[in-house]
């Protein structure tokens, strides 16, 4: 029996044996008796003799085998001596039976493995269809679209194509720079508090650009206040903003 080594972490120094139980099993088979009636004592002797022989030949022996040898020597002594009374540990007979069970178990699995491998194996003994045509699953597309979506798509396209060309008039009063420019004209001429809204150009007090104009104008007032050219006042949160010319500082 030549057995390939399974890997570097298993030191298998007894060529052909897959561990101590396997070695025991092989020795047991040499007794040519039913494993159910195996003599564990005899088996232990054979195992110990086998290990002794290996040692005599100065072959390296893996630790697993030595542990088993020690255990069998212990079991043998227990089997030869009467069990100590009131000992809670398993009796020698129980230990022997447990070992016999292990032997039977491993043997059963070795046989099972052999019968599995003896079955007609796919790709070795039996073959499937070499060129299966396959069972196609064809996706049957089912499109989802409502009349509303269809009409909406047409409407959107129509609107896009026929919508008027939008001309946006150039705004005279949108950027901060524009607002500054606009406000500066009033600086120095506003001795009394006046509402900020009053400084917005007339044509922009309503309409879509009102907010951006207001924001730009407000930002401009802050800039001018920082420069001391304006004073700002707000009596309550969200209340109207008032402004007047800065104290002392005269316009250029």
């Amino acid at each position: 029996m030549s057995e390939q080594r399974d890997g570097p972490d298993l030191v298998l120094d007894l060529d052909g044996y897959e561990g101590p139980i396997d070695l025991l099993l092989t020795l047991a088979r040499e007794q040519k008796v039913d494993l159910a009636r195996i003599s564990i004592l005899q088996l232990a002797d054979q195992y110990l003799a086998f290990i002794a022989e290996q040692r005599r030949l100065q072959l390296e022996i893996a630790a697993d085998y030595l542990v088993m040898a020690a255990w069998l020597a212990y079991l043998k002594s227990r089997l030869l001596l009467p069990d100590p009374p009131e000992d809670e540990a398993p009796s020698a007979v129980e230990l022997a039976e447990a070992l016999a069970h292990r032997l039977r178990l491993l043997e059963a699995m070795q046989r099972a493995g052999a019968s599995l491998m003896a079955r007609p194996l796919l790709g070795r003994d039996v073959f499937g269809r070499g060129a299966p045509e396959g069972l196609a699953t064809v996706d049957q597309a089912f499109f989802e679209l409502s009349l509303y979506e269809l009409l909406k798509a047409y409407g959107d396209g129509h609107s896009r194509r026929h919508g008027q060309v939008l001309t946006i008039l150039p705004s005279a009063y949108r950027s901060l720079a524009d607002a500054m420019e606009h406000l500066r004209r009033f600086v120095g001429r506003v001795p009394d508090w006046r509402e900020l809204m009053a400084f917005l150009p007339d044509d922009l007090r309503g309409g879509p650009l009102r907010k951006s104009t207001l924001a730009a104008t407000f930002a401009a007032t802050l800039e001018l206040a920082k420069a001391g050219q304006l004073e700002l006042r707000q009596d309550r949160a969200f209340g109207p903003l008032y402004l007047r010319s800065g104290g002392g500082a005269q316009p250029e």
Partner: protein
Amino acid sequence: MNERLRLLEALLFAAPEPLAEAELALRLGEDADLAALLRELAEAYAERGVNLVALAGGWTFRTAPDLAMALKSERDVTRRLSRAAVETLAIIAYHQPVTRAEIETIRGVGLARGTLDRLLESGWVQPKGRRESPGRPLNWVTTPQFLVHFGLESLKELPGVEELRQSGLLDIGPAVLGEALSARDEDAEPAEDEE
């Protein structure tokens, strides 16, 4: 059953490709009457769900051609059409018969290759005749399934432009800066991006 015939059957079944007669002769032994065996096997399978056929210089089993449809199983998959496809469908519905070039003119953008294919797949449009104009382009129309799907008695039931306007589907609305910009972006979009 003849042992040689069994082996021939198994060989042909297991082979990943059609087996040439030379190969079969080798496997079956020199003294086998291969032609007779093949004939016998082909006859045995003639009426079955699987047939023995000569293909690509060899022999192989194939499922019977009349079962091809039954071997496929269909699975309903819900799909959605792209925006371009929906609009194209709408244009075909409103302007039929209409050519591809006309659809492109109306949409103001090229029609990506898959768009009409997809609509054909939906079963809602079909080509019908050719326009008697240079290049004789295909005319596109909607199908009866189109009417069935959208629950329309006839194409006359499609709301007209004025009705669309009234129902708010044709809402040009006040032109505000943002919308005007987004509309312009779309037109500039390359046709390939539509699908």
